[in-house]
């Protein structure tokens, strides 16, 4: 059995998760803590991929990153980098589709605890940066971790947008969900079943671990009673 789809899926999902985690936390923090014009519109745009069919996201990405698209053309001309039909395209698809899950979890986590806890730290002379790392981040961590696991699971399972922007190129853009689809298409049921069971186990394991961890730690980290 060729395990390339497993390693490729893990590579793509891991890279997408890291990027989504950093940007999701950043935007959640800005939007929950600051007021600025157009805030509701920005928030709606960030959440949009959650309600759109993945094929629509894929179409949009193809338009933007295609070799004649506004960003795709520029990347090709200046850096000789092509996004469509590469694993980088799959990473971008996973980022866009999984982003709302991380953003939503992070925004909820930053609103969950009493804001006076941060204010107290500020009145004690702490910088905003120190308050974020020593107070906000640890208090939001249970929710951020849940977002992280959901993001990884979503990125790992991404199919529609990935197929549109990265296509199915064996050994290059062949992720587990694509392998399952094309194995079924070509009547290769055993291969499809193998990948179905693999992805079931990864997803189930991730959620089981998250629930176990949350039960152990959430009370200690968030209880103010």
């Amino acid at each position, binding site marked *: 059995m060729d395990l390339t789809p497993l390693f490729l899926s893990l590579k793509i999902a891991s890279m997408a998760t890291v990027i989504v985690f950093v940007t999701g936390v950043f935007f959640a923090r800005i939007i929950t803590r600051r007021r600025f014009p157009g805030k509701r519109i920005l928030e709606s745009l960030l959440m949009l991929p959650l309600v759109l069919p993945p094929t629509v996201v894929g179409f949009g990405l193809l338009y933007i990153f295609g070799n004649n698209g506004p960003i795709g053309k520029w990347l090709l001309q200046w850096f000789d980098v092509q996004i469509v039909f590469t694993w980088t395209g799959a990473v971008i698809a996973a980022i866009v589709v999984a982003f709302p899950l991380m953003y939503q979890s992070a925004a909820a986590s930053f609103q969950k605890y009493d804001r*006076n*806890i941060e204010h*107290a730290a500020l009145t004690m002379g702490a910088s905003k940066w120190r308050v974020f790392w020593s107070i906000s981040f640890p208090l939001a961590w249970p929710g951020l971790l849940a977002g992280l696991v959901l993001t990884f699971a979503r990125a790992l399972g991404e199919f529609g947008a990935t197929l549109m922007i990265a296509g199915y190129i064996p050994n290059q853009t062949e992720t587990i969900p694509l392998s399952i689809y094309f194995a079924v298409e070509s009547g290769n049921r055993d291969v499809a079943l193998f990948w179905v069971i693999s992805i079931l186990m990864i997803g189930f394991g991730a959620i089981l671990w998250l629930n176990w961890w949350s039960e152990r730690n959430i009370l200690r980290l968030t209880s103010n009673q």
Partner: protein
Amino acid sequence: MLLVNIQKKLQSLLLDVHFKADGEIVVLFGPSGAGKTTILNCIAGLIHPDSGQIKLNKRNLYNGKQKPMPIAKRHIGYLFQDYALFPHMTVEKNIRYGMKDEQLLHHLAELMGIKHLFGSYPHQISGGEKQRVALVRTLVTKPKALLLDEPFSSLDIHTKLACQDELIRLHESWNIPIVLVTHDIEEAEKLGDLILRIDNGQLFCPQ
């Protein structure tokens, strides 16, 4: 000296207050929703007034024309109504967070009888203990003024009286302006050098 002269439009009222405190305990007394906590929040810098001026020892904390001084640079200790202890840190880590003087920490911890709590987390200690921990945490930052938002409201009567006496003793040795918010008239009369009654955002001086 703390000088407060601020105006701020709130949802249902216009807050318009003016008072001055040298080394005294100023008590802001009035019903809930009268704007008392908003005044403390303005002094601490958590929110800003629409106009006016806030000065502490010749330093402008807020002056309508200039950029307000950031919270962290104001040197104002604030004891929140719910204490706002950091739930994920032990009592000791809470107190050391903004500490400026190690000796003062040991002195105050001894005085307030909280040394034995150092290894506990906030959710493991009682309301009275939380209140004392929060007060010590605020005092070890050596604030130049102290804001107390209904600090004794959730305490039983014995703890409340003991904490009030402790505050009077501390004030005698520290001699910094203290602004205390309460809706308990007995507490106001016991602690206040100056009692200001707030009603509908307006200030009345009954003394």
